[in-house]
């Protein structure tokens, strides 16, 4: 935080501020990679890394300019996430959740809430949002968590999975379905700002994920959680529109994590090959198979970077066709996470058998990269949205098919 505040005080040039943020992120990524080698197998939450990101002002990049913040663009968020992913997928993904929420929320909420959230973030706050409801199939339009009106406020009950970053969180964004009879899904969806440590939220099952093991993505039990009226972030019926109109944040920021993993895999393949020899090959880098693989990964990465950059700069705000916009935002997410898998596989093949040794970084990348297609929007949903939109069919019309 110190860094960020000093910056504003000194009215530092924004470009210089950005240069310092990316330099710091790059330096931290190297530190995070060393920690990952120690902690990955144990699945220890990356709390130390999140503290470092807070201290460097990186968690505050989305604080609005009017509150003295850097007010990072979506493209800038993506760049930071990509850099962090070079060092540690878990950290990058945990940060991405915070970035998605803070980045998308700042333009959509009233002054008071904005000061409440971003004042906290400026001072080291960390916001997470466990969005996956028990047995909802990741479909946020059908929440199983419910919010009942009670006095002037609400009482929330439910189970939330994948509460990434819970241990570092100062605030949680909790979605739930209002039980009001006049509201039908998805318009019953509401979002609440919950202070960490609130009564009624507890860890039901600790995270022990196969991929991204250090994200602390616990399952939370929410029982009788009491909310005031002003904790509800949007007016009744508006939350679904907010979610729809901000899908670019989730889709692009998630894609950035997996692009970063693929880039690191490529670097490792080059590092492990350049100038290396064995009893039969005097210079591995002079083998054509290695050269072709490296060349092909370069081509893939250039494609992925171009695509994500293009969307993060040119497809940032929805126009009149909100659903069509959402369909478009699926494109970089769909392509990047799947292509990243192919790049990591190819890099692993270049590294060869030594990559199988325990604690190897490429093994961690191989595990982490598999999370990409499983995060929303999943492959099949992406294909459906993109395909229907291209064919002039509304992706959310019913019946879905014949």
């Amino acid at each position, binding site marked *: 935080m110190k860094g960020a505040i000093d910056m504003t005080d000194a009215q530092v040039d924004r470009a210089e501020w950005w240069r310092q943020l990316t330099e710091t992120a790059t330096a931290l990524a190297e530190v995070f990679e060393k920690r990952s080698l120690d902690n990955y197998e144990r699945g220890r939450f990356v709390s130390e890394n999140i503290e470092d990101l807070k201290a460097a002002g990186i968690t505050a990049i989305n604080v609005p300019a009017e509150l003295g913040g850097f007010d990072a663009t979506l493209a800038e968020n993506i760049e930071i996430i990509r850099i962090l992913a070079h060092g540690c997928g878990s950290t990058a993904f945990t940060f991405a959740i915070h970035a998605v929420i803070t980045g998308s929320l700042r333009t959509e909420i009233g002054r008071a809430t904005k000061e409440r959230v971003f004042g906290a973030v400026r001072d080291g706050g960390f916001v997470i949002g466990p969005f996956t409801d028990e047995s909802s199939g990741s479909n946020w339009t059908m929440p199983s968590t419910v919010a009942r009106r009670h006095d002037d406020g609400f009482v929330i009950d439910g189970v939330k999975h994948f509460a990434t970053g819970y241990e570092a969180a100062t605030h949680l964004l909790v979605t739930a379905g209002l039980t009001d009879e006049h509201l039908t899904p998805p318009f019953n969806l509401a979002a609440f700002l919950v202070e960490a440590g609130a009564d009624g939220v507890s860890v039901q099952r600790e995270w022990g994920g196969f991929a991204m093991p250090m994200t602390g993505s616990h399952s939370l039990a929410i029982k009788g959680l009491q909310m005031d009226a002003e904790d509800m972030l949007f007016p009744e019926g508006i939350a679904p529109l907010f979610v729809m109109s901000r899908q670019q944040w989730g889709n692009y920021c998630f894609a950035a994590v997996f692009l970063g993993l693929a880039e690191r895999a490529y670097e490792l393949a*080059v590092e492990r*090959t*350049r*100038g290396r020899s064995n009893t039969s*090959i*005097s*210079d591995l*880098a*002079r*083998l*054509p198979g*290695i*050269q*072709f*693989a*490296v*060349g*092909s990964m*370069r*081509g*893939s990465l*250039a*494609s*992925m*970077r*171009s*695509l994500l*950059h*293009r*969307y993060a700069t040119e497809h940032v705000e929805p126009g009149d066709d909100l659903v069509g916009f959402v369909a478009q935002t699926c*494109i*970089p997410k*769909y*392509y990047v996470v799947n292509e990243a898998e192919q790049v990591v596989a190819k890099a692993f093949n270049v590294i060869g058998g030594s990559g199988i040794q325990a604690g190897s970084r490429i093994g961690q990348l191989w595990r982490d990269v598999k999370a990409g297609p499983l995060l929303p929007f999943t492959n*099949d949903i*992406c*294909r*459906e*949205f*993109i*395909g*229907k939109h*291209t*064919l*002039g*069919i509304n992706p959310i019309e019913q019946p879905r*098919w*014949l």
Partner: protein
Amino acid sequence: MPSTDYVALARELAPVFAQRAAAHDKEGSFPQENLDDLVRSGYTAMTVPTRFGGGGATLAQLCQAQQILAGACASTAFAVNMHVHGLAMLAELGGATTEWACRSVVEDGAVIAGGFSEPGIGGNWWHPTTTATPVAGGYELNGRKGFFTGFPGATLLFLSASQTDDRGIGQPVAFLVPKPTDSTDSGVRVSSAWDAAGMRATGSHSLALENFFIPERYLVGESGSLPMLFMTGVHWAWCSFTSVFVGIARAALEHVAASQRNRTLTVIGKPNAHLPGIQFRVAEMATKLAVAEAHLNAAIDADHSTDVDPLAHYIDMSLMKTTVSSLCQEIVTIGMQVQGGSALLSADPLQRMYRDVVTGLLVPPAADVALEWAGKQALGVPVFDEPRWVG
């Protein structure tokens, strides 16, 4: 900024070219009337610098316009491509020959065709086997050129050859010379007329150069400077080539999507577009197209100044062409599957796109060389080291 909106011009010309495309494809005839339209409308002056009366179009404008033409008639776009991008490269070079050529284009409607491919050199354009022997007043060229795209419509020929320097080493040189109008005994002979499965209307004849005399003044640049000239200007070549294939792929997607929205099978009673299998494949096409466009655009927008290492620049552009042209071929192939049996009928332009787009895998730069150089550069191995590989 050019005063003409060349992208709008391409849009204007495209529907007519699209109508003419099937007939030229069927006959393998050269679309001279399209070329005439391009000359008449000023399209061919697009990349002539404004100081010579041309449009001074940017790379981005050139590429966008070429994509649109290619979606209508890929052969026409490809046939004029050497002209439009070649002029841009020449303009960067400058010199008297360039000025003369530029003015010919603007004032006389000159059209350039270029020949850098030769049988026996593969993709190694920097090693021409055509010889340029100094004679009184100029050079005599002997050799063979393949894939001389646009030859029938050209008035100027852009040619490479090898001149032996004083150390006895062959150095590539280039000439820009009026195409001989006398077809007999001019020294330029069509040794084999173009007859191919794709890009059938490009007139990409094979030529025999037999004691072809070229006056001194038509030499372009200095002896030996050609490789470096080409490397630093390669974005004009590879981005415009690639644009042709992206244009085909986009047209294929639009055509397939429109067909599937309109085609109703009696057994399902709704347009095919409602079938999830169609949707998923169209999504693959749309996604790959977005990737192809983004990668091409990133290459167009990249730093092309001399601040960039020429080899790295050449490699980045080559990798882009390799990656993107492969995506484009995949897009059209998936489109064939979506469209089904009717895609094969000559009445469906999709089959022509399938035959045209594969050319992207075959034209320079060769994919294997692009990957080899990209790999070597990343791995710290000099690209011209011998032996080429060790194992």
